[in-house]
């Protein structure tokens, strides 16, 4: 059976979640692998959330926020961007491929872009194969 990855995604309420809703109301079709968790702002996404998702068996994590300059809270997305680069470095040290984490800007009107992103990300993770962190952690304990 083909590997079906699970991608946990954190979407900001104002732009990206609305954009994902728009993909729905426009009946665009995309890969079923993305699971959405709503946060008010991408700035709320703590590194812990990302690590937790991998720890629980996610094969990829996607964070979406408003485009630069469009953040509902002025600059939460910039703060998210800074953290994102740090998290990537840390993932590397933990033996998780950096490509398993992605940050993207999706506005409230970009339903199409969200659908394409979900497909793209699914393809990327499929080519990387399953994330082994959960298994390794379980062996260790």
């Amino acid at each position, binding site marked *: 059976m083909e590997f079906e990855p*699970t991608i946990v995604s954190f979407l900001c309420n104002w732009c990206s979640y609305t954009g994902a809703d728009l993909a729905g109301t426009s009946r665009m079709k995309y890969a079923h692998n993305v*699971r959405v968790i709503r946060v008010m702002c991408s700035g709320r996404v703590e590194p812990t959330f990302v690590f937790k998702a991998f720890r629980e068996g996610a094969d990829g994590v996607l964070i979406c926020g408003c485009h630069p300059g469009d953040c509902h809270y002025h600059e939460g997305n910039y703060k998210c961007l800074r953290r994102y680069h740090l998290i990537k470095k840390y993932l590397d040290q933990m033996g998780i491929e950096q490509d398993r984490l992605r940050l993207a800007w999706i506005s409230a009107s970009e339903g199409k872009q969200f659908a394409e992103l979900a497909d793209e990300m699914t393809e990327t993770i499929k080519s990387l194969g399953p994330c082994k962190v959960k298994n390794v952690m379980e062996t260790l304990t």
Partner: protein
Amino acid sequence: MEEVRIGVYVCWCGSNIAKMVDVEEVSREVEKLPGVVIAKDYKYMCSDPGQDLIIQDIKKHNLNRVVVSACSPRIHELTFRKALENAGLNQYMFEMANIREHVSWVHTDRAEATKKAKTLVAGAINRVKWHESLDKRHVDIDPATLIIGGGISGISAALEIANAGKQVYLVEKADKIGGYVAKLDLTFPHMYSGKDMIQPKIDKVMNHEKIEVFLNSMIDEVFGYVGNFEATVKAKDEKEIKFGNVIVATGLKPFDPSGIDNYQYGKLPDIITSLELEEMFINGQVTKKDGTIPKNIALIHCVGSRNTNYHEYCSRTCCMSALKYANQLRSALPESNIFNIYADIRAFGKGCEEFYTNTSKKNVMFLMYDQQNDLPKIKKAGTGDNCDMIIEMNEKLSGEAIEVPADMVVLMVGMKAHENAKEIAHAVGISMCGNEFYIERHPKLDPVATTTDGVYIVGTCQSPKDIPDSVTQANAAAARVLATINVAHMEVEVTTAVVNEDVCCGCQTCINVCPYTAISYDEEKNVSVVNEILCKGCGTCGSACPTGAIRSRHFTDEQILSQIEGLMSMQLQI
């Protein structure tokens, strides 16, 4: 902690969800999850019987948490929260799983869609376990209202509110109010004078004791929350104002046709925009640049509208304006040839179809072109031609390639969002769609409110529209504002950040990341303190806090981590 007793309700949304998700299976499976007392599926959870089902179950089964798995929380979260409240439960003991917009409408494999729905519901169930009762905060409503924009919409709203005896601050960027209506000679379909219509209103606004007008002014940033906003009016003399509600009426910007090569705007002398023609009518004479009277006049419709290269949307007023010009030109220049070069005639307003029929009887030629693929092309006429310009076009109805003579071409330019739309959106905290028009709270059921409490959008800043629609929206928003002023207080969200002083180490990291300067440092206690009135609940401080002292209410670490856990555990089971 009290025993967690969760009720889960899976909505069919008619066939919207049920067609792609096996709702019965979802409900059967999640009922087995720890903490779930009862799980049901029902045709329309948002309907009265659907809500009643929840209310009855809360009472019967002593539920203290509810999960509804249905559409987007952006649509019905408040509906269900109210239902919980009606059942005597705190409204925050509720979580929604979005299995319509994020599942049934976007996936094509029923088995996979059902699986995904289960994981999302399991996530919601896990999250809701950590929900806590939050008390709504009651705030008083400042009876003053800020209106941004002094066009017909802003003016109408201002008068409604001020006539009810409430203070209005009207901020206008230009040196006078009146907007585009004041620049209209006549209006369709009744041919009333725009200027005559709006002038008495302008006078009333300027002299109203309850309206303070700020001309040549802008609003920088609006602080606060519904009922208690404040802002600085930027003008020659800056002024601090306080108000309870905001009505945004920033209006439109006409489309600039110089980017359309076929139309030669700015390159040939007598190619003008509809606004320039309007000015000629106001000044009483339609002439070419050389002062002579044009013999052949062409009105090209849909300039910048309904074409994916420019704007996909219809600007809604240009067809009727073009018919109005045809009428005006026919009276002003009885000898002229008038050509309406159109894509479709959209005459949907009251009295508009009749206006179209009448116009078509006045010796006006209607020629149809393909708006998306085949725009007419204007070129300079040759020496032998008896006109200044030639418009080459493929006339769609006859199927013939024709040349239309023209001495004056009027481009019926569409509407764009105002050039300051983005700044204003940021200042008041509202969102824009891709075309930079503002997004309403609900496109059908709540079209003048926004997702920011206390901020309303009226007129063409929301989408292109004509005068009656703008006035209707303005009056609707005014009624909404007056209703909140009348009640005098309102419930607001309490999903703000809160500091646990026992854990806070006083590092002040949160103070640096807060976009609202809502956090201050208490030197005596060596802790950070959140001003809940300024906090808008973005949660950035919560993610930055190194000790976990800051909790973002309703988006706490436990809630989100637990949601991830629930989502993934169900994923592994199936």
